[in-house]
């Protein structure tokens, strides 16, 4: 596939043009951090960021999603009948997503899009989304993507990879979807592919070398599940945890949700909202029994799911892309890198 050169001077006009054909999501600065937002007519992406506070998952998997609508007004013939919430949105583009967040969609896909079960909301949204990645020239000190199956220039899950090089972007086209998007934006200046790759490779090597944090995952699959579950270190890991949902809500790979009905007047909606394994309510049974009624149960679940059950179920790495958000945002410094390393080396000779 080809590589397109985008001069910074062309950028604004291209994004404006893109908005005719796509809903455009990108990082914007809010208060003292960046978040992904759908851009309004005149807004431009703000790509001067290391990573967004929340991941890009909300572009495909919103925190609240309306599934059905209904009326309780018995004078209407369709009262108490669920109607699928209309989805009138067209194609969307996520501009400036980091490779870690794009790779996360591929992990989440294992849950939402399987041969047996397809989550129609997630699948539809994913299919109509074009992901334009922005390579990380300056990774954070808490990034560990290179030991979580990715890298700052990783192309997995992306349709286009933008590489910022001085006063231009080199846009590496990775899929037909990506080619179509660049075309719609009017970005057409084809670069010398070999020359561009040399530039990209040099920047990638520099970025890879800047990642100075890593996790070990090689023994996770071999660990005996119940032994790991009963490991004594969970008590120490969980002590500081306050059981808030920060880690799970900021995580690009956490996919759990809860379905709720809400009625105002006669109008009802059935919606789904992000939920979190950190919350006691998440597992509370109708009987009143809660199988995860202590903090240790819940903390262990989060790490066991990402780093053991997922590994065992899919045999394709861990359910983490090393974005480091949970490490940066945890109010009490519970660090998944330490927990993963403890899990990995558990029971092995400390030599």
């Amino acid at each position, binding site marked *: 596939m080809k590589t397109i050169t985008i001069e910074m001077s062309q950028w604004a006009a291209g994004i404006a043009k893109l908005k005719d054909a796509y809903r455009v999501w990108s990082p914007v600065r809010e208060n003292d951090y960046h978040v992904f937002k759908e851009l309004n007519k005149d807004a431009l992406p703000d790509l001067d960021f290391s990573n967004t*506070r929340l991941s890009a998952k909300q572009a495909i998997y919103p925190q609240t999603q309306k599934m059905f609508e209904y009326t309780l007004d018995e004078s209407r013939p369709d009262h108490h009948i669920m109607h699928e919430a209309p989805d009138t949105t067209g194609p969307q583009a996520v501009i400036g997503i980091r490779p870690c967040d794009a790779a996360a969609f591929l992990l989440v896909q294992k849950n939402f899009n399987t041969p047996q079960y397809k989550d129609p909301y997630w699948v539809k949204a994913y299919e109509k989304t074009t992901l334009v990645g922005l390579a990380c020239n300056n990774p954070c*000190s808490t990034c560990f993507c290179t030991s979580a199956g990715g890298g700052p220039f990783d192309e997995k899950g992306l349709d286009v990879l933008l590489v910022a090089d001085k006063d231009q972007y080199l846009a590496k086209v990775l899929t037909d979807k990506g080619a179509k998007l660049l075309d719609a934006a009017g970005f057409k200046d084809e670069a010398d592919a070999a020359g561009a790759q040399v530039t990209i490779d040099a920047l990638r090597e520099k970025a890879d070398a800047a990642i100075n944090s890593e996790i070990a995952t090689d023994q996770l699959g071999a660990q005996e599940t119940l032994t790991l579950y009963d490991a004594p270190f969970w008590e120490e890991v969980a*002590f500081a945890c306050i059981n808030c*949902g920060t880690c799970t809500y900021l995580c690009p790979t956490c996919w759990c949700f809860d379905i709720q009905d809400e009625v105002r007047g006669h109008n009802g909606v059935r919606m789904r909202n992000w939920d979190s394994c950190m919350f006691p309510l998440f597992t509370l049974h109708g009987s009143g029994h809660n199988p995860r009624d202590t903090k240790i149960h819940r903390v262990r679940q989060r790490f066991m799911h990402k780093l053991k059950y997922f590994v065992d179920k899919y045999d394709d790495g861990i359910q983490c892309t090393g974005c480091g958000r949970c490490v940066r*945002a945890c*109010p*009490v410094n519970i660090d998944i890198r330490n927990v993963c390393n403890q899990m990995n080396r558990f029971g092995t000779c400390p030599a």
Partner: protein
Amino acid sequence: MLQYQDKIQAIAARLLKECKVDLVIGFRRGTVPMMNEPYVARTAEQTTNLIWDSHCGINLTNYLTDRKEKIGIVAKGCDSRNIVTHILENKIERDQLYIIGVPCQGMVDKRKIAQAVNGAVDQVIENGNEITIKGPAGDKTVTKADVLQNNCSLCKHRNPTIHDEMVAEPVAEQTDIDAYESVRAIEAMDIDAKRAYFEKLLEPCIRCYACRNACPLCYCPTCFVDEHRPQWVGKSTDPVDNMTFHFLRAYHCAGRCTDCGACERACPVGIKVRIFTKKLEKDCLELFGWEAGLSLDTRPPLDVYRPEDPDDFIK
């Protein structure tokens, strides 16, 4: 700070060796700059992990709720006030505790530090009132007073109000502080402006409940937002539900909040949630002359009835 740390470790080791306590709750060094982890030392050897610096902002009283052991706990001014509140509310017994009092000089706000170097922070070095920040963009030295958490800038109770042993002589308390400037600004708004202000303030809320869970006052077995038969509050981030959560939580803290700042510190999206509790703190001070957590001998205003109460509605 280093002297504090040595003293904390020595006291903790002594308490554990003499079996005066079963465990000591304090902080250990975090894995990223400006973050320390609440930590429990159970042996004298483990007490060497206990640290103290200007990043110990989480309120450790949170870790005392309903514990049954004999506990040593490191407490700065606000923690000690919350310990008093915990004792008054029967969440822990006074004689279960050995309180290691730390005269506090304020905790730094990691957001202000990050802003000072415009982004990433590799290391933060404290030297008295100076803080040197090292980052990819270079080094910068700032005055600690300029990067304090807002609640620490406004604090009038830096010294523990209750303790069994102090790690150092008390520090001078801050005086001539106008603690309620931000509250008055909102009180002066008309009703529409207030609503607009609160909607904007809470717009980023993702309902992760980090503020609630970091708060030592929020120990209800089931929080009202988690009640589901009936369910009082919606689960989405609808502005009305967000406001319901934040407003009601604040009211539950009336007369109890010590302005420790744990809520604001924990918020992943930087919402200044203290504005709500600050208003109630101001009301309690003006209406009842009350500040939470100063003494074990007085019941909080909202859990006593006085026959001479001047208000008619209560009679």
